């Protein structure tokens, strides 16, 4: 196996955290570069786009959210896992909403971070070259229309703007319309996490997708099945 070593960019303003993460990730089989602030992170990405970014939210000056927003605005769809030292929901939500793919709360288990990064990298590598759909395929559920070739989503006449991860979640739910998917199954299908992991990232993203689909009062399409998971269908 001569797969190239995936390269990560670690962004954290604390030197100790940077040192430890660099060492830990390097020993876990990644090539690691690091930056200590937002502009430094963007410079590093500009120099050479890494395979994934591990980004602290609480950077001084330009914060992590601004970095994610800037990356996405520049059309970099590199997987981003944000790290937050605050445990309030707002912080978690805000980084993901800007286009990050997952979050972890400090202090976290390095093995968990490594497993998630590997999964995100695998998915990125597999999904990128293969738009595995016939041209013109459209999934329609009630007022929802997902155009897989154009990667566009409409509710009725209204175009809905989704981040990459939100779009992938919606596609999985739409392809499996009327089928209840567990959180574990969604983690596997959308994030590639085929291991047990303790996160509510699915719920957070379902929340985002719902908010965007229902922005103009459209009745709920993504339903929670209590104790089981989520399902996309028209009506209750």
């Amino acid at each position, binding site marked *: 196996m001569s797969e190239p070593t995936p390269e990560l960019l670690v962004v954290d303003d604390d030197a100790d955290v940077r040192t*430890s993460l660099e060492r*830990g990730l390097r020993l876990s089989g990644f090539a690691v570069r690091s930056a200590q602030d937002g502009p430094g992170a963007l410079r590093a990405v500009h120099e050479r786009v890494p395979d994934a970014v591990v980004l602290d939210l609480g950077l001084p000056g330009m914060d992590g959210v601004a970095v994610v927003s800037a990356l996405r605005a520049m059309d970099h769809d590199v997987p981003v896992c944000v790290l937050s030292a605050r445990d*309030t929901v707002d912080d978690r939500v805000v980084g993901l909403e800007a286009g990050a793919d997952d979050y972890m709360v400090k*202090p976290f288990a390095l093995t968990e971070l490594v497993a998630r990064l590997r999964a995100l990298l695998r998915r990125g590598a597999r999904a990128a070259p293969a738009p595995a759909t016939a041209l013109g395929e459209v999934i329609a559920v009630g007022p929802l229309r997902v155009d897989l070739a154009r990667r566009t989503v409409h509710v009725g006449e209204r175009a809905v703007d989704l981040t990459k991860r939100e779009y992938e979640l919606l596609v999985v739910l739409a392809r499996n319309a009327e089928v209840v998917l567990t959180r574990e199954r969604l983690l596997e299908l959308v994030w590639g996490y085929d291991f047990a992991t303790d996160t509510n990232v699915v719920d957070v993203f379902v929340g985002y997708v719902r908010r965007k689909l229902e922005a103009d009062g459209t009745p709920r399409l993504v339903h929670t099945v209590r104790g089981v998971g989520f399902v996309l269908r028209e009506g209750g």
Partner: protein
Amino acid sequence: MTRSPSLRLRVALASALSATVVVVLVGVLASALLAREQTERLDRSLVNGSPAVLGSFASTRADLAVTLRGPTGTVRRVSGPELPLSPIGIPTSVTVGGVDYRIRTAPGPTPGSLVTMGATEDDTRARVAERQRLVAGVGVAAIALAAGLGWLFAGRAVRPMRGLTAQAATLDRTPDTTPQIRADGSRESEELAEALSAMLARLHAEQERSTASLHAARDFAAAARHELRTPLTAMRTDLEVLRAHPDLPERDAVLDDVLRAQGRVEATLTALGQLAAGDLPDADGGDVVGVTDLLRLAAEDARRAHPALEVVVDDPDTCVPESVRGALEGLRMALANAVVNAVRHGRARCVRLGAHRGDGGGVVVTVDDDGTGLPVEEREAVLGRFVRGSTAGGPGSGLGLALVAQQAARHGGRVRLEEAPAGGLRVSLALGPDRAG
């Protein structure tokens, strides 16, 4: 819950009751006077006169009776029923044949004879009763009027109270501003409103203070958690690395990092504890701390903590008070933090401790360093908790200078960060003038 009767009803009842007392008194007096007056009138009609004239007059009136008695006591002439004898000249009430008479006896026309004249009291009594009824009627009307007016005026008088009640009921809906209660209309209600407003203002201020300190405590707790999580993240990562790679060549370096992170956690916890302790008010006025002793102790602390550092103590000016009242440990800790700040963030090689007299009296203790200094615009901000300067080197809790500021405030003074003569930063710890001595 049974409610007491309304104030308005009470006032109405009270005025009705007072009116009743007055009406009864006046009524009783009036009827007594009336009865007496009528009886006197009746008595005046029992005039003296010749029996013949009286007799002919009496015969025309059914209510009059005349009896003439001879010297022997024989009844000589009678008009109407025979009247009994009564003491001469004194009007007397008698009953003759079931009819009440008022009689008066006077000497007759001939010597020894007596004339007794009587008039029935029925008419008089009827007149008196009629007038008494009138008085009673007026009295009842007056009572009713008093009750009605009481009700009416009490309504006006309790209107401010109702206003107060309505305002009090809506108070909790506007918690953002200090509520103002008004109840114009009577002095008592205005005084009550003023007292209530003052009480509410006190409560509101108290509530705002506790809300602010609650927010501050919450922010502080969040910042403290955040502050501890950072070194804990590094520590956990390092420990996982050590476990996954038991034969790591750089094992010692990783262990050093773990220890350093552990030290950071410990330092932050210590600083947090000192902050919490410094927030407590001093139980007593504090110790008497000699300024020279304080500088000497701080210098010893600095030399012990930073062996490579050159520590110079300037003798205080002669005009500096010899001692201050305060917490020795707190002041020592504050100076030690200023020294740590100079070493860690200013990369100082030499610190100079000194003291001079403050502008308004009191003592100013200074810690000068020859380090890199701090940009002017950050000098206020870094005194805040968990705030680090942009030139900060090495890990810090962000609490060091905050602790200095806290000790200054605790000693009635403040901290100023200035340019030191040697080019680095000067931390001036001014102690309040009242602390000198």
